[in-house]
């Protein structure tokens, strides 16, 4: 398992700026992942998450700033021996079987091909071993990619939206496997759009927005950043009318219900009840990480 060999963090990125031509993707990002720590990188589409992971894997050349994996340059092949990567876009050769893919990954990571057996079992896909990659479902491909990332005993796991396409059970098992590696000492940097799973597995959350870190901390700290409450109710008013009520910050649909975040839920409710006497199924809760994220990103958008 990922043994710490020295005091270096699993990943350290400092002062990262990156642009594709004249399209800026990252504008001054600092990030650190300690051994045995799981960091979730959250943020809307195009925030720069995949770009940051691309720099950490050595796929992209650093333009400004510094990236080090255990103090070493990921552009050097030998450094990547320390990495286990699940990229956002997968692409397996259709003619190879799962076992062949994982054995190949083992050898490319400098381990014996027999290590594949353990990785297949760890991810729970031993029964897929002889299946050709062309015949895998999306979720199965995702798990094969995790097995390929784990087979080299990485000290840093880089997982870019690795649970896309997984069902609920597979998702839970996926994060349990990752958490076990984290507990054994590997650093983990992950991205996901399912905020609840980040809240469950991550020790630290870093929120990116338009290439900048707009918030960072433990999931609990981020939620506490917001004094917001969430008010959910069934209403006859249109969403835009609710958004215009006093103390309403953001409005989103939750099935047939409307979900409104507010720093002053009492004030909001007085006005809402006055405007809609048929208001029902009322619930007031502290904000979850998801709402915290929505509000943080909206504020960043306003102040950008």
């Amino acid at each position, binding site marked *: 398992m990922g043994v710490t060999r020295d005091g270096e963090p699993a990943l350290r990125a400092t002062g990262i700026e990156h642009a594709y031509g004249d399209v800026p993707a990252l504008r001054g990002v600092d990030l650190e992942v300690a051994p045995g720590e799981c960091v979730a990188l959250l943020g809307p589409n195009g925030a720069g998450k995949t770009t940051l992971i691309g720099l950490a894997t050595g*796929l992209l050349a650093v333009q400004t700033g510094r990236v080090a994996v255990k103090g070493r340059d990921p552009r050097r092949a030998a450094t990547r021996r320390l990495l286990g990567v699940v990229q956002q876009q997968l692409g397996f050769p259709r003619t190879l079987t799962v076992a062949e893919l994982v054995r190949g990954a083992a*050898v490319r990571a*400098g381990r014996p091909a027999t290590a594949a057996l353990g990785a297949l079992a760890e991810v729970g896909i031993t029964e897929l071993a002889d299946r050709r990659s062309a015949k895998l479902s999306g979720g199965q491909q995702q798990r094969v990619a995790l097995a390929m990332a784990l087979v080299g005993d990485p000290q840093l796991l880089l997982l870019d939206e690795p649970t896309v396409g997984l069902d609920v059970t597979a998702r839970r098992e996926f994060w349990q496997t990752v958490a076990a590696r984290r507990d054994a000492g590997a650093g983990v940097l992950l991205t996901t759009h399912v905020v609840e799973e980040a809240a469950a597995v991550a020790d630290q959350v870093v929120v990116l927005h338009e290439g900048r870190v707009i918030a960072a901390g433990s999931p609990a700290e981020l939620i506490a950043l917001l004094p917001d409450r969430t008010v959910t109710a069934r209403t006859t008013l249109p969403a835009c009318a609710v958004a215009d009520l006093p103390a309403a910050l953001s409005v989103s649909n939750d099935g047939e219900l409307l979900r409104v975040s507010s720093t002053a839920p009492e004030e909001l409710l007085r006005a809402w009840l006055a405007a809609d006497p048929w208001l029902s199924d009322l619930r007031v809760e502290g904000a979850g990480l998801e709402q915290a994220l929505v509000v943080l990103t909206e504020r960043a958008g306003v102040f950008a």
Partner: protein
Amino acid sequence: MTAPGAGAVLGVEVAEGLRGVIREPAALFFSVVVPVLFFTMFTALFGSMPSPNGLPVAASMLATFGAFGVVSVMQLNPGISVASDRESGWLRMKKVSAAPVWITIAGKVLAALPYALAVLAALTAVALAVVGPVIGVGPWLRLVVVLLLGSLPFACLGLAVGFLASANATTAILNAILFPMVIASGLWIPLEAMPAWVGGIAPFLPTYHLAQLALAQLTGAPAAAHVLVLLAATVVTGGLAGWAYRNLRV
């Protein structure tokens, strides 16, 4: 911390390349079947007649069609394979591994060699069946060795295109280069049977020199000039491939 053993990684790359062709052979169909079919037809018609260089036509054609088959496999297969790996994202996945990408590239060239050899074996089997033994074992071995070694510049050209173009474009571009080059070098129809101006173009084409080098193994004609031209072609296409590799997008 050790880098993975280059030998072990190369083994994996070659095995993956070989499996790719065995399990989905359609890609190599034309490279293998076309030369063998034409060769069978022509040897059945003219195989035992003498050709202008004194050899039986079947022996001459072993060199010319052999050159065609080997160049076809080596120019198309590694290049198209690398282009489709780029397109599918597989090359990007390998690029973040601890194995250097050049091993992947070398693996693709090595994995194509057995198929080039298979074309030569098939042509030889046809010649034996239709005409009987037309050349000795020694010259045959030399013929095989020079054809396989001499295919390197064509493999480099294929890779150069495959590093930059899509898989479909790579197939189209490489075929568009291959067929005129093959015909103008007299690999299908002997130059003696074609208009004189074609014979004037031929010495400027590396395929011509590869076929002449192969023929020289059978006739004992001087071969140094052909070797020099092929070396120069390797320098040029190798340079092209190196440049394309530095501009590789995955």
